């Protein structure tokens, strides 16, 4: 279990993490979602004791990371694909980490096979593809067989097969009662992998809830309506308090009224409907909507 309490990190010119409070529970996959620059990586580095909070605290299993007697057995982390010396072989990199905790060589072999880098284990890491580097990082995180896994953008650079592999692995590990905390800026990936979401934007938590409730809460709740009586219907709905926009092809996009209300109003006024479709926002849209004001770097298109 990871508990962040009023966790804050201020750098010289900007606040990267702004008094965030959250709990990551064991037994499920918790997604840490936010646009680039939202403070996800900084938060994860503070959990791992690599960056010191400006104020507030974060603990793993009730203790600050620095005070854990055997950190690799409690927390495994993939903080970035390349936290590895490029001149060393994958096997030696893992061995050097394992030795700090007296983890046997057999376990090093085991994680190498588990992540599927057996063929390149004795090659120097400098020549690894992004995907292999990612798998090596995951192997390092699994070395101590820890109860908590923290993975920063784990699917980065993985091919579709690799993505499915890590998704299944994380589900499996969460099923064993472990705490799984993964960050991503890809909403679609989170929809498939995570049970619970902590969403951040500009250093603040903007949502902390189950994936399903996140989607429904943030849904735009628009209803798409087609009718031969565009003008009449639009007037009636607007009078009833709806926000209506008429698109070029005659589609009415109705907000603030639900589908049954629209159907009843149309029937009351003798207006025929050809189509009545409540829109469910995707996780992607829900996320965009929630963080629209919080995104630091807006693209010019998209």
């Amino acid at each position, binding site marked *: 279990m990871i508990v962040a309490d009023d966790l804050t990190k201020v750098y010289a010119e900007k606040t990267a993490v702004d008094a965030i409070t959250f709990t990551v529970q064991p037994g499920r996959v918790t997604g840490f979602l936010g646009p680039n620059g939202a403070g996800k990586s900084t938060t994860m580095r503070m959990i791992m004791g690599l960056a010191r909070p400006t104020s507030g605290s974060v603990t793993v299993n009730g203790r600050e990371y620095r005070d854990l007697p055997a950190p690799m057995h409690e927390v495994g982390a993939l903080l970035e694909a390349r936290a590895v010396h490029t001149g060393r072989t994958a096997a030696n990199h893992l061995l050097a980490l394992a030795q700090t*905790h007296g983890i046997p060589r057999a376990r090093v072999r085991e994680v190498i096979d588990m992540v599927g880098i057996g063929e390149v284990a004795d090659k120097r890491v400098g020549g690894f593809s992004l995907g292999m580097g990612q798998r090596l990082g995951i192997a390092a995180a699994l070395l101590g067989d820890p109860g908590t896994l923290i993975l920063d953008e784990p699917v980065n650079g993985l091919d579709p097969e690799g993505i499915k592999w890590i998704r299944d692995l994380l589900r499996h590990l969460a099923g064993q009662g472990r705490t799984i905390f993964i960050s991503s800026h890809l909403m679609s990936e989170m929809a498939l992998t995570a*049970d619970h979401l902590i969403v951040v934007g500009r250093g603040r938590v903007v949502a902390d809830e189950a994936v399903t409730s996140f989607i429904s809460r943030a849904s735009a709740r628009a209803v798409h309506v087609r009718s031969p009586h565009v003008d009449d219907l639009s007037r009636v709905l607007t009078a009833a308090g709806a926000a209506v926009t008429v698109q070029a092809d005659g589609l009415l996009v109705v907000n603030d009224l639900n589908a049954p209300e629209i159907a009843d109003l149309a029937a009351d006024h003798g207006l025929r409907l050809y189509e009545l479709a409540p829109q469910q926002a995707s996780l992607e849209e829900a996320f965009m909507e929630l963080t629209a004001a919080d995104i630091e770097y807006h693209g010019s298109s998209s």
Partner: protein
Amino acid sequence: MTATQTTPVYVPPSGNVAFTGVLASEWTKLRSLRSTVWSLVAAVGMLVGFGLLFSWGVVSRWDRLGARERLTFDPTRISLGGVFLAQLAIGVLGVLIIGGDFSSGMIRSSLAAVPKRLPVLWWKAVVFGVVALVLMTVASIAAFEVAQTVLSGKGIQTTLGADGVLRAVLGAGLFLTWVALFGLALGTMLRNSAAAISTLVGVLLVVPILMNFLPSDWRDHIDRWLPSSAGDSLMAAHTTDAQLSPGIAATMLVVYLAISLGAAAVLLLKRDV
């Protein structure tokens, strides 16, 4: 999917970070990089090779040297002439041993495994220090013996048994070990290999040259306290009045190293990585 009451509770394996573990880990890190091996080979090669080259040069020109030059000839000093190059190889290696960790991001893996941080620095220093001490001492003795063999062609050799010679030869090994660890401290403090190597070269080679621009009475007071001058004293069979005695020189080097490693430790503890 949601967590339920029946979710199993995961119990991790036990075991602590032990100092023997960190020691073994640092040894693995050191031996598993090709650059380490090549830098050490280069340092040994320069030490022995240049001792050989310089002695051969003297022997080949000995009959044409003036009386004064013959009188001041120091067979110990010439055999250890390779120190000036070897110090760069071993010092740069000292920087890279930690600098490479900072530039590659490896330092995060290392410090996540050992969040108390300082054991990483201390054991790195111990492992690298012992390797450097053993290799540089052996190489210094080898350079000395090879050079004396060459010099014996003109009967101008000396022996380890002669006054002050053994201390000078061992002093060369000690000074090179000092440079290695000073490089490690600079690399830790500056976190940037290029900056640390520049600083190392500056301290060892440039500052002594700058001394020549000072008025001589200032220079005489300052120059002897420089690490390079203390090293010269340590490696000289017979020190001059302008130099510190070998004992004081060694003490000063220990003090400088303690200060720089101490500063490195404080910064390593304090900084985010």
